[in-house]
């Protein structure tokens, strides 16, 4: 018996249910774009995106396609190519709920789940309008006599568990361990997610754990529910250390998506051709 489940991309897409909390990796940690397009094609609804800590074209496409009801993020942007137009418009016309956050808070909420504690403290943030609008956060006076200052207000962030995480990586070994290099935020995401699926460029007929150094580069298969080979699965985003972003394509998207019509045309072309 194989030591992990090799799935089709369709099977992974079918694991994503309407209304679930979907983990979204940043542009530097392996954006599963091919998966995202299939998800849009399937007509998924009411997704709650949890971005660690931001999203680029992946989030903008999902929002533009009407798949998203809520997004928690520190930023949604096309980077060098400017604002994420479908996101900005959706926020401006109130068609999605944005839970504005800040990078370290998004990390800490998942770390709470990683440790199975109900909350994590964080310094900073207090006095910002981010904090003022987050009713799920709370502030207590530091109860710790042996550390910090007693009358100091401390921000507590709730543990957030993701229903499902999907990301793209360069390769998996024969036991279903995933090479993530130093993109260790993917480990945090996986630890905090009920189910984890990965699309990879290829399988390597090796065992990363046979060598201490290659072991250090991988996310153990024990967190992974299924893997699918998808060549160029991050395109047009970069796969760090493997291929760069296709900036021409992202620029093309950024221009098309400035209008609803341009976005629809772009998506029709990219989903059905």
């Amino acid at each position, binding site marked *: 018996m194989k030591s992990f489940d090799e799935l089709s991309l369709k099977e992974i897409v079918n694991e994503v249910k309407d209304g679930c909390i979907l983990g979204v990796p940043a542009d530097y940690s392996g954006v599963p774009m091919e998966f995202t397009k299939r998800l849009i094609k399937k007509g998924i609804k009411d997704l709650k995106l949890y971005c660690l*800590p931001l999203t680029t074209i992946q989030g903008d496409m999902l929002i533009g396609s009407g798949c998203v009801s809520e997004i928690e993020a520190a*930023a949604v942007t096309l980077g060098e190519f400017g604002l994420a137009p479908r996101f900005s418009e959706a926020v401006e016309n109130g068609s999605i709920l944005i839970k*504005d956050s800040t990078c*370290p808070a998004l990390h800490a909420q998942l770390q709470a789940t990683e440790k199975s504690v109900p909350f994590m403290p964080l310094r900073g943030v207090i006095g*910002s*309008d981010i904090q003022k*609008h987050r009713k799920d956060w709370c502030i207590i006076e530091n109860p710790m006599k042996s550390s*910090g200052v007693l009358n*100091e207000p401390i921000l507590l962030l709730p543990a957030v568990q993701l229903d499902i995480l999907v990301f793209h990586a360069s390769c998996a070994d024969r036991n279903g361990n995933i090479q993530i290099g130093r993109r260790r935020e993917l480990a945090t995401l996986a630890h905090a997610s009920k189910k984890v699926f990965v699309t990879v460029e290829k399988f390597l007929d090796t065992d990363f754990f046979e060598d201490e150094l290659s072991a250090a580069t991988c996310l153990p298969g024990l967190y992974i529910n299924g893997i699918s080979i998808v060549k160029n699965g991050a395109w047009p985003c970069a796969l760090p250390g493997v291929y760069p972003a296709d900036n021409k394509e992202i620029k093309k998207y950024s221009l098309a998506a400035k209008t609803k019509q341009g976005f629809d045309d772009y998506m029709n072309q990219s989903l059905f051709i």
Partner: protein
Amino acid sequence: MNSDIKREELLISQLADLLVNDKHVAVGAASPIPGAAALLAKEEAKLNNKRLRVTILHSNKYNNFTDGARELFDCAAQGRIDTFFLGGVQIDGQANINLVGTGTYPKIEKRFPGSFGSALMYFVVPQIILFREEHSPRTLVDQVDFISAPGASDENIYRPGGPKYLITNRALFKFNKNLKKFSLLKLNQNQTIQDIKELTGFKFDISENISDMLNPDTTRLKTLRDKIAPMVSEFYPEFTNRIWGI
């Protein structure tokens, strides 16, 4: 060597001057000018037999972190980063910054990307340099519409860090923490105090020793163009192509 000094080169040079006492400078996303300034300062430190470590998140080569995306914030909270750069859709006279949008939150009129890590970095990095090229009443406002991160905090809040400088295409301000107010320190060439007053949406003091921004000298300019520009092209190719044609 082309001696026509570009606006970007002047800003890089001005920023590099602010980094001479640092041991570790970090540069966030989409910041070619601060990135170039940090690498320039590092190169010049070497000549003075000093070490300056530069972490550029957007680069693979100059990204010193191996603990995932949270390490920047943990490292800053530990006090291991001396200078970081932040921008803003709006920056106000009390150094509050807004990266979220204009209008009354949550009813946003024009939505921008979001606050990134500013709400922590602004609290823990000793020298935050606010960097916003556009200097206009639209960007430098009396009061921001949304506080992504406040310029100052109450006494009982843990805050070893905060704003030190604000630099734009037109001027360099220093932030006075006690007065919670900016003070005009340097003017870009061809700018008058009156110009700045008209183009700034908040009230500010005028420093006693106000001066002009000095152009980089020949040595620095040569270092920047010959050594730093190719380094920056690794992670900001579009920028280096536009400025230096490489």
